[in-house]
């Protein structure tokens, strides 16, 4: 007898909307004439993200009323934290989309022909013809779909599939930069190989846990922990491998080595998207796995997580200090932030969940905003032609005088990264550190605090460069210039800045929502 599984279509609506948009995007590529293709893609993507956000909000109210529920035969879990993670993801993705879609000076950040050999005649023709790689949008939509599933995944298989769905498009997107194609391709290759490598670990962990519990449902594994005896090795090794798979995505040391290279090589709008959204999704999954499966393991995993957290904070900070490239600096800073976020994971405390939520929102806003601004700062050669983004830190010197608003916004994001009070970053730090103290991990907090102080050095250094240093002209006559955004990036930056300030000054509403979400109900 065949019993059709009950599918909760309504609850799945956010995912479905995005998946639909992605498919439509593919069709648009096929059927819509080239001239209007980009516009249609942007509109479809934006509508989909907006629609999904509305759907998530609606589901939030439903969950508030009816309580959490399992979807699709237990593959997904619809509960408050999942929805909140999804909401944060969608907001950040929408902002990132604006940056991706922006065509400052009539050019977007993507190569018109990803398959062409860099510097070939064919590529030149494509550029002159004004071609655009509009597949970027459906790819992004696919990635967001995967990310959206990630926080809600209630079994390891779903988690694995989601992991791949979000990763595969990103591997491609990383290689599509318009300029510095070699580097971009290299980033893509590295990201892909290492990503697949880590997927294998995740999968092996999945297999071991399956062997241990006879199920890949998180809830089942959690139930099995106190019951099954004699196979602790499987459980521990499996959990460790799964966590490692996820730690790779969040960029924790020593699984972080892809981060700087990929962040630097990928097209900057994609870097912003990836840095913000992937981290949100991966932390959501990590949080769910750790909070649901491992509380019973407690002290067995604690040393490992402690060491990783400390290494991540310290190595991220120390390496960021010695960087000379803007995107690499931000990449290492994101590694350090992963370390701070791990404190919330380790806390194993309700406050940890809300803390991570707030921190991720703060971090995401600042990240999207910062990378958005990076797209606008370009190098100009002696003839005045735009060459590319101003990557080297020294090229940012004196920006405060030339474009005060841009510099002030960038400084704001940096201060938020540094966790200065009255910025969102402080609220997040306070929440996460608070959770860690409540969980009894105060030595970690002290290390985190010291790392924050050291981290402040390189944020401050950039501020110093922008405001206190005279702008320098390169030996070849190149100089730094700021291009006008088409408007979309500007909107994204302003929203990020306002969000950063609001979450910093009046975080009550955000905290209240996060507090509501801080109970995982199984």
């Amino acid at each position, binding site marked *: 007898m065949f019993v059709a599984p009950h599918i909760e279509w309504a609850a799945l609506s956010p995912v479905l909307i995005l998946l639909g948009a992605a498919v439509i995007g593919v069709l648009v590529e096929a059927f819509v004439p080239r001239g209007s293709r980009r516009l249609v893609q942007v509109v479809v993507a934006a509508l989909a993200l907006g629609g999904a956000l509305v759907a998530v909000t609606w589901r939030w109210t439903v969950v508030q009323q009816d309580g959490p529920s399992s979807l699709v035969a237990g593959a997904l879990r619809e509960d408050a934290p999942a929805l909140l993670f999804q909401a944060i993801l969608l907001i950040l993705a929408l902002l990132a989309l604006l940056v991706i879609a922006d065509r400052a000076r009539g050019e977007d950040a993507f190569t018109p022909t*990803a*398959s062409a*050999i*860099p510097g070939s005649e064919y590529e030149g023709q494509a550029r002159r013809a004004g071609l655009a790689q509009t597949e970027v949008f459906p790819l992004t939509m696919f990635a967001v779909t995967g990310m959206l599933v990630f926080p809600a995944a209630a079994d390891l*298989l779903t988690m*694995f*599939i989601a992991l*791949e769905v979000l990763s*595969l498009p990103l*591997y*491609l997107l990383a*290689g599509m930069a318009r300029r510095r*194609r*070699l*580097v971009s*391709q*290299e*980033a*893509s*290759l*590295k990201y*892909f*190989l290492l990503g*697949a*490598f880590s*997927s*294998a670990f995740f*999968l*092996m962990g*999945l*297999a*071991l846990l*399956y*062997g241990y519990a*006879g*199920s*890949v449902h998180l809830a089942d594994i959690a139930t099995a922990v106190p019951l099954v005896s004699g196979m602790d090795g499987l459980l521990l090794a499996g959990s460790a491998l799964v966590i490692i798979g996820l730690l790779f995505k969040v960029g924790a040391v020593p699984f972080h080595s892809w981060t*700087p*290279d990929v962040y*630097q*090589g990928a097209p900057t709008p994609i870097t912003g998207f990836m840095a913000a959204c992937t981290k949100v999704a991966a932390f959501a999954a990590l949080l769910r796995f750790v909070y649901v499966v491992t509380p019973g393991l407690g002290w067995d995993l604690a040393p490992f997580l402690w060491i990783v957290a400390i290494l991540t904070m310290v190595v991220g900070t120390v390496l960021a200090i010695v960087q000379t490239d803007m995107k690499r600096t931000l990449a290492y800073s994101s590694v350090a932030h992963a370390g701070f976020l791990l404190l919330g994971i380790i806390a194993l405390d309700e406050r940890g969940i809300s803390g991570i939520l707030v921190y991720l929102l703060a971090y995401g806003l600042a990240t999207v905003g910062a990378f958005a601004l990076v797209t606008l700062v370009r190098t100009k050669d002696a003839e005045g032609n735009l060459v590319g983004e101003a990557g080297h830190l020294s090229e940012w010197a004196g920006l405060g005088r030339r474009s005060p608003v841009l510099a002030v916004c960038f400084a704001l994001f940096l201060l938020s990264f540094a966790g200065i009070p009255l910025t969102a970053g402080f609220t997040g730090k306070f929440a996460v550190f608070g959770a860690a103290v409540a969980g009894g991990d105060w030595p970690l907090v002290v290390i985190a605090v010291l790392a924050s102080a050291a981290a402040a050095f390189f944020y401050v250094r950039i501020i110093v460069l922008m405001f206190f240093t005279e702008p320098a002209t390169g030996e070849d006559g190149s100089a730094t210039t700021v291009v006008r955004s088409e408007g979309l990036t500007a909107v994204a930056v302003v929203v990020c800045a306002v969000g950063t300030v609001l979450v910093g000054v009046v975080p009550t509403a955000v905290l209240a929502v996060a507090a509501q979400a801080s109970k995982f109900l199984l």
Partner: protein
Amino acid sequence: MSILNYLVLSGILFAIGGTAVLVRRNAIVAFMGVELMLNAANLTLVTFARMHGDLTGQVIAFFVMVVAAAEVVIGLAIIVSIFRTRGSASLDDASLLKS
């Protein structure tokens, strides 16, 4: 035969795959190593499915194959485009991004 044999075999395969990633210069071969690791995991899954007497593990193995296929598509696309650019698929050549 003990279940252990299967697990050991899968462990060996996983290790061989991992080693391939570590030591082989050619991107394609390294990638094949990853595929080998995935299949080692598959073997584990199937073994445990047999042990538990439930089909989930086998189903997952199929999922993994599909995912691996998708990965191959993407991976080859990337490797090919790099090969066309550089005329080499050596991983060691791709090291512009560092420190």
